[in-house]
């Protein structure tokens, strides 16, 4: 039994080393000098320890601007999705109106359409609208999500009907009932969805890479990939840049990991 346990820890330990290793290795490189990062044999501890890579990036490249762009875009997308999806999910779960079932299936059905099919027409549409290189291109098409609506609907189906009946007796209309009584109950779903949407937007690459062309409008991932092209083998600099994208997410994830894992669980199974 104890031997089995030892084996278990060994397996888990090895895999944890495999997942954490690349992060630590990159973090260490970001504090190294050019000579140290290409030294052979490689060492984990940066010696000499330097912050120059970070100061260089901040002075010579618009990393702060890219971070700002990413924050604005991810912020708008997150807030909009958290509320707009909740409203739609509630309507589909609880409000009575003709065509409710059909609409639900249409919305669910759209989840099957792969992004690649619509990339070209959406690109053409957004060019016609003159939205290329603007925040609008990366926010307005992404204000809602069928997946998010589905997640909320499943939650609202489980809320006891007596709450709405009581609200109705108090003279509340459907709007008040939703915003004052029902939505506050959905806080855990809102938290999970906020994290999903924020990460999805913050980390997103395909759409911003296609819809942005002036460096000042880049999001962090797009900026980072363009910057790697210029600083090809200066891995200490490239890894410092990588940390700009990774570190905020890792911190947020560690703080909210409980909601996150719950969120994956509730959506993954149903």
């Amino acid at each position, binding site marked *: 039994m104890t031997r089995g346990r030892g084996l278990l820890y060994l397996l888990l330990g090895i895999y944890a080393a495999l997942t954490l290793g690349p992060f630590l290795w990159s973090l260490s490189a970001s504090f190294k000098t050019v000579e140290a990062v290409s030294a052979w044999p490689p060492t984990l501890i940066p010696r000499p320890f330097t912050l120059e890579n970070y100061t260089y990036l901040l002075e010579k490249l618009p990393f702060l601007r890219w971070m700002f762009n990413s924050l604005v875009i991810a912020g708008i997308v997150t807030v909009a999705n958290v509320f707009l999806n909740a409203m739609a999910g509630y309507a*589909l779960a609880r409000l*009575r109106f003709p065509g*409710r079932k059909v609409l639900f299936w249409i919305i669910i059905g759209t989840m099957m359409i792969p992004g690649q099919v619509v990339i070209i027409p959406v690109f053409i549409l957004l060019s016609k609208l003159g939205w290329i290189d603007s925040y609008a291109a990366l926010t307005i098409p992404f204000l*809602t999500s069928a997946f998010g609506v589905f997640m909320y609907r499943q939650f609202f189906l489980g809320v006891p009907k007596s709450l709405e009946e009581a609200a109705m007796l108090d003279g509340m209309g459907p709007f008040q009932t939703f915003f004052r009584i029902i939505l506050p109950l959905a806080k855990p779903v809102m938290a999970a969805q906020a994290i999903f949407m924020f990460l999805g937007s913050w980390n997103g690459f395909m759409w911003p890479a296609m819809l942005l062309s002036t460096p000042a409008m880049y999001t962090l991932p797009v900026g980072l990939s363009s910057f790697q092209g210029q600083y090809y083998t200066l891995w200490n600099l490239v890894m410092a840049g*990588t940390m700009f994208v990774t570190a905020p*997410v*890792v911190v947020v994830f560690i703080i909210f990991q409980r909601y996150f894992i719950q969120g994956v669980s509730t959506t993954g199974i149903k």
Partner: protein
Amino acid sequence: MNLDRARAEKLAAFLFLLPILLTLVVFLLGPMLYAFYISFHEFSFMVPKNSKFIFLDNYINLFSDDTFLTALKNTAFYSLGVVPVQMAIAFLLAVCVNSDIKGKTFFRVAFFLPTVTSSVAVSLMFMWMYSKTGIVNYLFSFFGIPAVDWLNNIHFALPALMALAVWTTVGNFMIIYLAGLQEIPKSVYEAADLDGLNAWQRLRFITWPLLKNTTYFVLIMSTIGTFQVFDTFYIITKGDGGPLDSTMTVVLYIFKAAFKHFDMGYASAMAFMLFLVIFGLSIAQRLFFGREEEA
């Protein structure tokens, strides 16, 4: 009173659903129809009026396009390699993390971290680690394995990207398996203990069969994910699928056709072919699992 209420509910439903319906119609359903339309045309992006209707030519040409066939082959190879490995590791890790051990939260966070990291960051980290003087070659040198320029070698580039894919996605599927495991009642295992089943037998005859629905879900998601792979390939090969098309995937080729060759009709036809392939695979998997259920 009641009539007012019914009317108020209809109005609320209309307003609540308006945002999602608008975005879906304008940015998804409409574009899909348009993509279908241009896939039958020799489409000119600059002057859409000059587009020529060529019916199925784009679709037919796909089958004599060597690059497309290579991309399809690479994508299938990639999927066949990545899906089983990532599922097996995800399942094993979930079982381990779900058992009675210390430091569960640590392991869960550690395993999940690659999944929440930006694909660009992951690609750059691996480009460095896979380089000729990188850490991978250093570690392998202890086993007497000669240094390889992983990402620039036509034999190793695709397998190297497959390992990267497993590394990034295992965490996600582990969490889904974990959720499934937590729904298995404890009493099932207590009964197994009474019957004197050992650890392997419990895994084989209880856990695995009870997780069949989860496995089905993971299989579908994993297959779709591998067939739609784009970010890492695009970043690492600069959108080229090199060396010598050895890492050309279908989605990468769609991009190349659309935004480098500006052959958007052809690219759209390719996107629909990919959709059909994924759809067919999903149905095949459904049939396979459905049949098993009856047996």
